[in-house]
């Protein structure tokens, strides 16, 4: 099910077409939530919303990986962050939020 909000930091400075969105990885073994910024088009990964430090090394080749556990960010343990998760990461002030559905559809 599509999320009612699209949360992003800014347009991707690498590809110019993607949105730098907040991706969270939940490591089931350690039970902690890791956040990173992922371009939804060119898949560049940054460690935080300042977009200063890229993360290029991971366990899976040619795939964006979590800066913490190194696993693919397209695995089922990862997902686009929702607003509470963005708040939990302390990144609420760095993001822009766009409503993607009509108000009466939001539950």
């Amino acid at each position, binding site marked *: 099910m599509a999320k009612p909000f699209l949360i992003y930091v800014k347009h991707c400075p690498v590809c110019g077409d993607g*949105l730098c969105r907040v991706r969270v990885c939940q490591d089931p073994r350690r039970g902690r939530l890791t956040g990173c910024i992922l371009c939804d088009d060119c898949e560049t990964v940054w460690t935080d919303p300042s977009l200063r430090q890229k993360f290029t090394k991971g366990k899976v080749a040619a795939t964006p990986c979590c800066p913490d556990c190194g696993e693919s960010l397209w695995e089922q343990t990862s997902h686009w962050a929702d607003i509470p998760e963005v708040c939990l990461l302390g990144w609420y002030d760095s993001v822009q939020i766009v409503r993607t559905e009509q108000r009466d559809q939001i539950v």
Partner: protein
Amino acid sequence: MARRSSNDTEAIANVLRVLPAKWIIGLLVAVVLYFFLQPRLNQWFGWSLPSIAAMAGNEAPAKNPKLTNNKTGSAASKSPAATKSTAEPKSPSETKPSAVSKSSSTASSGGAASPKQADEDYKYRILKPVGRDRYESPAGLIYAPGSEEGHRLAHIAKHLEDQPERPGSHGVFEGDMASFLVAIDDAYKRARGHAKGTKSRVEDGMTVYEAPFDQTIGYLGGTEGARKRNPKLKKMRLVIRDRNLITAFPIQ
């Protein structure tokens, strides 16, 4: 190709006796060089030079070298890459991998406006299967599983239709998936060859190529595109990592 008889072998031996030794050595060096360079030349320039085994008749010829299906659209028929793609020797029934259904079904939602069979058609007429759910274009680009959509083909299919609600710009290619793949290959070859007007830069293991086109290839979508009344676009940007295509879309 027919197999060599003993008469052929004798004829070759007679020719070798007549030729000077330095010519024979030169010939052997040329054969060895060709042996090593042939696959690379095919890969770099999109040629289809035959291998030595094929010339010697030891390699089975393609069962269906002439593909008469011509659904690739106008851009595909105009581009030289399109003519190369039609010479792909493997027929769909021979090369169909087992796990392609997921990606093709998702790719079809991206505006190809055709059923699953047509999606598989563009793969096999333009792309060559090189592994489990991995495809190689005539120019050497690899389309592999990955991205949020599950496969790069499904990912780039998002650029076949506008997303008017998406914040910012969203490059939309005007045409079907087959012509999009041909245009991507064309842009890649020109940008790699540093053709006039092309640009390339390397960003932490990724290479970003830009190549202009003579004609309009798409339009600007998204909220910014709508605000600017969807201007026409004549350039394409490709993001590539180790020959793997990550994304491709028209830009201003």
